């Protein structure tokens, strides 16, 4: 079946109809990635999403980092990271940090669950389109992997001053960032919307 798609990079019309499971298409003119078809993509996204959500709960329940020097100790949780910036009079930075590392990733994962559960079973729901829209609009603003690099850089910066211990929450967050990245990368924009449209048409 002929299925045309306009390349996001150069607007070339490309037929992406006959992809088999596991095959992906890129634009022949500008090389931009177009789409990847996987027969089991929604089960995969669901697996990553559920693992990610469990790890996220863990990341919020234990201590994130602890820091001790000359007999004094300070322990922080994940939420205290933006919280402390707020207390020092920079609410704008605190809101940004909280949004990029906790709020947006959490919302995207919960929405992925709500989107992929019906898609995986092939059931149409009227909220599929608004949910997918919210996911694709906000996913670029999640910075979980950047935050992990930030933690590592911070550790090296203060390693000379004091003893720093990584808590369970840090490892859970590291696992969460991997699951989150995989979940978002596995959900293919084009295929997902085609599926929603198909299911909607079958319903009507």
């Amino acid at each position, binding site marked *: 079946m002929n299925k*045309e*798609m*306009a390349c*996001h*990079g*150069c*607007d*070339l*019309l*490309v037929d992406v109809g006959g992809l088999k499971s596991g095959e992906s298409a890129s634009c*022949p*003119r*500008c*090389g*931009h990635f177009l789409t990847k078809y996987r027969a089991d993509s929604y089960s995969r996204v669901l697996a990553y999403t559920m693992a990610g959500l469990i790890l996220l709960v863990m990341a919020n329940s234990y201590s994130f*980092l602890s*820091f001790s*020097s*000359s007999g*004094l100790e*300070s322990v*922080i949780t994940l939420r*205290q*990271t*933006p*919280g*402390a*910036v707020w207390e*020092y009079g*920079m609410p*704008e*930075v*605190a809101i*940004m*940090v909280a949004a*990029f*590392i906790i709020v947006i990733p959490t919302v995207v994962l919960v929405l992925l669950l709500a989107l992929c559960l019906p898609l995986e079973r092939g059931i149409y729901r009227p909220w599929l*389109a608004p949910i*997918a*829209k919210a996911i*694709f609009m906000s996913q*670029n603003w999640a*910075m979980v992997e*950047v*935050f992990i*690099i*930030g*933690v590592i*850089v*911070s550790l*090296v*910066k*203060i390693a*000379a*001053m004091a003893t*720093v211990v990584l808590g369970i929450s840090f490892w859970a967050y590291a696992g969460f960032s991997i699951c989150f990245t995989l979940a978002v990368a596995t959900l293919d*924009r*084009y295929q997902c*919307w085609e599926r*929603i449209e198909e299911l909607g048409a079958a319903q009507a």
Partner: protein
Amino acid sequence: MTAETAASRNLAACHICCKLASAELHHCPRCGSAMHLRKSDSIQRTLALLFTACLLYIPANLYPIMITEQLGKAEGSTILGGVVLLIHHGSIPIALVIFLFSVMVPIGKLMSMFYLVWTVERHSKLSPRQRTVMYQVTEFVGKWSMVDVFVVAILVALVHLGGLLEIKPGIAALSFAGVVIVTMIAAESFDARLIWDNMEEENSDDTTS
């Protein structure tokens, strides 16, 4: 056979759901997002955001990003000062990471975005394909500059030892976060398809399949 674009058939592609629909529609029939043949006022918007980012980048470098208070003595460190300090401590790899994400990436992003905007309506030494790759790289590295802001947030929360040792955020953290966000929006508002729209039909090696 020449390349057939969606625009040449008067079709607009939705940037949220990839749906192809008549360019006369203002909203995508599938997901309801605003739809245009090309992103509206792409060049002006991108340029305005790029100039904003340039302005924000000045205080981001002049003011301290982080203030260390040790036994009541406050000492501020700027982004570059932090890099120099790390080199003195011998943490060369981390100094390189900070230099890459906080200095090279923002400046490189601004320069490549200015170049892309400049060459949209002019002749460029780089082929459209090379410029598309340049745009994709710029778009991809965008959020990685936030590393320095996250480092400040973590250190401020963590280093809290009574009056002995404290770290406070400096005003540059705010302007630097502003630079990162504004350049990310600038990259998003630039329409990469413009690179190809104004291309002269000089390239004879057509790769349409």
